[in-house]
């Protein structure tokens, strides 16, 4: 079988090598690109997570990547958003360029709901480190989590997370920190994770491998 071609959407905020290489490890032909035509022609699209919501949306919109992403998602091209790449799937986010929370910034609106800041109290924000993902019944049916045990540890680094106004029936995994939040969502061909599978050792590679298998069979 020919390795599926997976476009990693580059919005010039950081290094995408670990995402590209992790997908390569599990049999994909992954490439970073900022070209909407390349994104449109790929077998699958991954939006990685680097930077702040405001900057990412600015870049995605100006470059034409946002349109290419929405179009790919609508054409049922398999799609995976990681961390900030998960956030931009939703209607609105509060994270400004400098990391502080402000007025709503419009997201791509592929999925319903908002992204809000984790409020620090006794626990420290950002939420950085290995925490558990808990599978919902929807998550147990999700192809991304085949052979991933309930409560598996995955690597997080974020200050913002999905709010409670997202559709309950797309929540595949939940994690608990300053509040309980959706750490994985799934609707049809669209997958999103708050954690970083490319930094989550063997568990992360299983999840990416499942995504590649899904792409191969899509």
């Amino acid at each position: 079988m020919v390795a599926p071609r997976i476009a990693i959407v580059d919005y010039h905020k950081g290094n995408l090598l670990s995402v590209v290489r992790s997908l390569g490890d599990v049999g994909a032909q992954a490439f970073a690109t900022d070209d909407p035509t390349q994104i449109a022609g790929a077998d699958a699209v991954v939006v990685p997570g680097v930077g702040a919501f405001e900057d990412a949306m600015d870049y995605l919109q100006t470059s034409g990547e946002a349109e290419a992403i929405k179009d790919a998602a609508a054409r049922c091209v398999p799609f995976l958003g990681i961390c900030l790449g998960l956030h931009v799937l939703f209607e609105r986010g509060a994270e400004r360029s400098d990391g502080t929370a402000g007025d709503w910034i419009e997201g791509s609106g592929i999925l319903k709901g908002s992204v809000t800041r984790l409020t620090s109290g006794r626990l420290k924000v950002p939420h950085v480190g290995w925490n558990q993902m808990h599978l919902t019944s929807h998550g147990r049916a999700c192809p991304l989590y085949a052979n991933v045990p309930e409560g598996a540890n995955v690597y997080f680094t974020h200050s913002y997370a999905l709010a409670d106004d997202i559709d309950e029936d797309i929540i595949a995994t939940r994690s608990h920190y300053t509040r309980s939040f959706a750490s994985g969502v799934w609707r049809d061909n669209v997958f999103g994770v708050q954690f970083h599978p490319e930094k989550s050792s063997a568990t992360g590679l299983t999840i990416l491998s499942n995504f590649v298998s899904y792409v191969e069979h899509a």
Partner: protein
Amino acid sequence: MLTKRVIPCLDVKDGRVVKGVNFVDLVDAGDPVELARAYDAEGADEVVFLDITATSDDRSPTVDLASHASAELRIPYTVGGGFKDVAGMRQMVAAGADKVSVNSAAVKNPELLTQAAAAFGSQAVICAIDAKRKGKADEWEVFLAGGRIATGIDAVAWAEEAARRGAGEILLTSMDRDGTKEGFDLALTRKVARAVPIPVIASGGVGTLEHFAEGILEGEADAVLAASVFHFGTFSIRQVKEYMASQGIPVRLDF
């Protein structure tokens, strides 16, 4: 629950691991990335590469190391040693380092922490502090250059300032305990951990499994770091984590 982390530290000079290593099955035990991969397989939660080359040296071997590490490692990693300005850190982050650790340069210019946090986010900025006890009292002084240069600065006050200025984590090394195998300076660790609202990584002095657990339970650290006990194969990372779990500490064991 967020787990407590176990972090092996690799001392690197000119792109090569300098301390002795005991991983007989590695093709090249001097290759920091290959060693880090072995630690990943054993359950390390992240790794720290500490560049011990003099600060005036050409940085390129370490930038090469960072991009090689991004290509090969599937856990987060930190690069530390010799940063003088945000430009140097930016090179490392651009090469894929998840975090940068800054020590002397931040003491000389604390504003550097603010600038780095603004550029990369606090989660990517570690302030490393080398502290030495002043006499018998529970007071510690910040030292530079591997313990050779005294600064007169109080370590706890400096940790508080570093956090205020944007550091996302404190990597706290006891110069009195480093290399002794007598265990962490728990009083120091606890004092800093209670003083700052950011995670503290305890470092310096680990010799037994009990020491790791003490760092968390008595030192109140969020992570424990060690070098030689891992390099020499005294303990595997799994052994350390299993012991910590037996003491009721949440750790990642599914690897």
